């Protein structure tokens, strides 16, 4: 019968896939003799997936590194929350979500004595507030950077001294701030003289952002968008990450980067080990490797963000460091993004939605 | 080829009984027309014989074998649909060969049989064409050839001529009859066209509302219709009441007209309408407020009857057809 044949065909197809799926798994399970696999959640093209580094680490530790890419900080939380034991070994939460991850018990408590390079960190990163809960440490800072002013050096000769340049009608149509509620609110707070991490008057911030809105060419969402618009001379000044600005500069773009006197937004990315990791020892080795002097120097000097490793930081050419906001002075001007509760995030997000819908 | 016997065949669609306890027995090699208005159940009957519908009750026998549980593709039945249903992606040849290929015959056997059947329907020069490149009549022949190629035990033709124009239809009727006589296959022919039914068949089954009203040879059914429905559906008829209250029918051509009063005149009336159509002339006569139709062969040119004229109607007692009570 036709029907029977089709039905059985369908069943066969389903079965084949089920088997293939199971087959894939059993292969993994059987592979206990095979090198262990370390699953790393990070941004794509963000240091740890550098092919040379991965190859060297794999060879040295007889293991395999698998990268899973995240598409936003919150989405990393989703990944951690929906992961099964062993799905994820190490991940890169930043300080805004770190306490959420720690409070939900998604990260393992760390023993820094297992990290030979921990002592080389700048002191301030050894005691990064968000990494701790009840005196226990759950993550190790890796890199830091700023979201500050990137400008076209052909059009703007002197480094802007204030973030208020992003509110300056003189540059109307040549400005691009980021489509991100956190950056937007903090930026407006800096201009208004409020505490960027605890703004007192959200209504004023909203009004300020609405006032600023028509000055923008666009709100950029991805680094790709910004770099293309900048290179295409569509945007002359905007909010940008220090790392990407450095990279673009090295690539020959006429881009200048400055943390202005009134400050800008700072961030710290940290490594944590996921609860349920099957290879915690390997995870420690991995973290130790990426906070090593060698790794940190290599990356920071080739367009990466700023190092947390003091030995690495001191090797970097001070002129270069200053040009991409890695210097001490810039560091001291930054308002580092802090953890925000869900309610705060929700309020800020809604504020930003209202600005955009205005 | 086979004797076909239908016993108590019944089919219901929901509340509707579309075929109601039908009994027919057909000897080998007969050409049977199933005649009836649309919606009378004739197509459903045919589809049950073909195996596309399962009867709710009753049985179908090919010779001694009950086929109710035999699927359509095992019944060895040739079919021709009104739409012909030629396979559009196959050539004439391939269409005809299709049924033979299902029978796992050798290529030589198939080729020989295809050639033979295509010759029979005079389609040799078109055998490489696709259906859409053929005219309606040609498609019809291919459909017939395809059905005949498998040497079916039974051939079912479903309104297969009605898509053709009148002239072509008459031609095809004759040709069909010839082909069927040669192949001696038992044939069921479904139609709503009484003329076609009479021209083609050995036997006519008149259906109405799911039941068989009457069956018999064309002569029997025409000359001796059992009831008003059959009488009026097959040919034309005038209906009268006799004094004892029974009703009877008289065919228009059996009525004699005369201008003068004569012995045995049964009715008198006034001519209200005359139609001349070459071989016959028809008169509509108003008798006691009833229209009576009367047809005359134009054996010689007559002219004497005019519109508005008073005429007398006469017919033989033999021409009166007794009708069963409704």
């Amino acid at each position, binding site marked *: *019968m036709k*029907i029977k044949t*089709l*039905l059985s065909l*369908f069943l066969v197809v389903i079965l084949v896939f089920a088997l293939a799926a199971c087959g894939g798994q059993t292969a993994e399970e059987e592979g206990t003799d095979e090198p262990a696999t370390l699953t790393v959640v990070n941004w794509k093209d963000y240091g740890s997936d550098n092919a040379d580094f991965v190859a060297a680490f794999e060879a040295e530790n007889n293991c395999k590194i698998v990268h899973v890419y995240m*598409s*936003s900080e*919150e*989405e990393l*939380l*989703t990944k951690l929350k929906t992961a099964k034991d062993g799905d994820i070994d190490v991940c890169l939460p930043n300080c805004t979500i770190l306490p*959420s991850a720690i409070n939900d018990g998604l990260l393992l408590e760390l023993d820094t004595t297992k990290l030979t390079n921990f002592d080389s960190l700048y002191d301030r990163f050894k005691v990064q507030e968000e990494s701790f809960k009840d005196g226990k440490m759950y993550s190790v800072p890796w890199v830091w950077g700023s979201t500050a002013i990137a400008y076209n050096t052909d059009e703007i000769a002197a480094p802007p001294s204030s973030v208020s340049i992003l509110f300056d009608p003189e540059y109307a149509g040549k400005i691009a701030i980021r*489509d*991100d*509620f956190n950056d937007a609110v903090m930026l407006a707070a800096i201009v208004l003289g409020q505490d960027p991490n605890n703004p007192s008057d959200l209504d004023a911030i909203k009004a300020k952002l609405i006032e600023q*809105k*028509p000055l*923008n*060419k*666009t*709100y950029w*969402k991805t680094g*790709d*968008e910004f770099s*293309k*618009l900048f290179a*295409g*001379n*569509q945007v002359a000044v905007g909010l940008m990450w220090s790392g990407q600005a450095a990279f673009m500069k090295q690539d020959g773009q006429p881009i200048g980067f400055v943390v202005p006197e009134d400050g800008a937004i700072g961030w710290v990315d940290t490594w944590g080990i996921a609860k349920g990791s099957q290879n915690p020892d390997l995870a420690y080795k991995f973290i130790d490797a990426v906070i090593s002097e060698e790794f940190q120097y290599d990356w920071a000097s080739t367009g990466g963000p700023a190092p947390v490793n003091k030995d690495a930081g001191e090797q970097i050419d001070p002129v270069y460091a200053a040009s991409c906001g890695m210097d001490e002075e810039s560091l001291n001007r930054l308002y580092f993004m802090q953890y925000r509760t*869900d309610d705060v*995030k*929700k309020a800020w*997000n*809604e504020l930003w*939605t*209202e600005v*955009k*819908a205005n | 080829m086979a004797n076909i016997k239908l016993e108590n065949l019944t089919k219901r669609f929901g509340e509707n009984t579309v075929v109601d306890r039908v009994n027919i027995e057909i000897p080998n090699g007969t050409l049977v027309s199933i005649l009836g208005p649309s919606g009378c159940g004739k197509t459903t009957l045919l589809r049950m014989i073909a195996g596309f519908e*399962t009867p709710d009750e009753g049985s179908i026998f090919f010779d001694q074998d009950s086929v109710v549980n035999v699927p359509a593709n095992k019944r060895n039945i040739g079919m021709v649909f009104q739409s012909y249903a030629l396979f559009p992606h196959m050539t004439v040849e391939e269409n005809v060969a299709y049924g033979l290929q299902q029978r796992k015959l050798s290529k030589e056997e198939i080729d020989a049989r295809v050639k033979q059947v295509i010759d029979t329907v005079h389609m040799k020069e078109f055998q490489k064409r696709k259906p859409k490149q053929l005219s309606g009549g040609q498609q019809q022949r291919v459909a017939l050839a395809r059905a005949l190629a498998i040497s079916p035990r039974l051939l079912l033709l479903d309104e297969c001529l009605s898509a053709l124009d009148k002239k072509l239809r008459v031609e095809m009727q004759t040709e069909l009859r010839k082909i069927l006589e040669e192949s001696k296959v038992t044939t069921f022919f479904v139609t709503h066209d009484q003329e076609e039914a009479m021209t083609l068949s050995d036997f006519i089954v008149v259906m109405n509302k799911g039941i068989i009203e009457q069956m018999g040879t064309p002569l029997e059914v025409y000359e001796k219709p059992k009831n008003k429905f059959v009488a009026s559906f097959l040919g034309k008829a005038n209906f009268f009441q006799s004094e004892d209250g029974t009703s009877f029918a008289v065919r228009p051509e059996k009525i004699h007209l005369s201008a003068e009063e004569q012995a045995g005149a049964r009715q008198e009336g006034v001519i209200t309408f005359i139609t001349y159509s070459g071989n016959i002339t028809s008169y509509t006569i108003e008798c006691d407020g009833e229209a009576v139709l009367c047809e005359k062969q134009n054996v010689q040119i007559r002219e004497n009857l005019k519109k508005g004229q008073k005429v007398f109607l006469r017919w033989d007692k033999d021409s009166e057809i007794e009708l069963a009570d409704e």
Partner: protein
Amino acid sequence: MKKKKKLLTFPSIIVLTVFAILPLIIMLVYSFQSDSGSSGVTLENYTNFFLKSVYLKLTYRTIINSLAVTIISLIISYPLAYFMAKKFKGLKNIVMILILIPFFTNQLVRVYSWLIFLQDGGVLNSFLQSVGLIEGSLGILFTQGAVVIGLVHAFFPYMVITIYLALERVDNSLLEASSSLGASKVRTFFQVVLPLSMPGVVTGIMIVFVPCLGTFVEPRILGGVNGTVIGTVIEDQFFEIYGWNFGAAIAFVLFAMVIISMTGLSRIGRRYDNE
């Protein structure tokens, strides 16, 4: 026989039920939960959506955008489908393939290519300047116009396909019959061809309008500061804040709107569907 044939629909239905309906029920449950973590059933996500003018405003903007995209797609697609079905002979397969080929590229990459093409000083701008059509900058990128262009580009080929398939079923002999009855070509078109192709048009409208409502990539990238639509709000709820409950609620409101408009549309379609 009929009963058995019915079984043929089951594999699809089972796949849909197991891999779409059941999972979505979980999401539906989310939409009725408070994000504060308490487990009770609440309507607050829905009331929040309907009581805040900003969401209604964005919904309105989304609908207007989607309508514009649908209408423009229809204007482009119908004649093209008509020409393919009725005028091109051997060419139609080639045209069909050419219409589908661009979809082998990634949606994001296509959108970024529009960005490059439409930007001031970009290809289009330079071209128009050099032929003297405009002076200065074009200013079309980062407007609703650019969003509509991007969305029409992304969706109109599907409409071409559905309309083409419907038109192909319209028998040419009907057109001949109509003109033999003395109808002009225009009249034949409006009284015969158009009604008979309506099912395809209705499907085409659905296949463009419905996904347009939930889209976020094109508006975000091409729409500039005013590129916020309901789709981007949903995206933000899931990616920027842990707002699954509210995000799910918006998605289901959107879904309800889709159901309503689809029911209305299929009524229209059924009126023309004589089979």
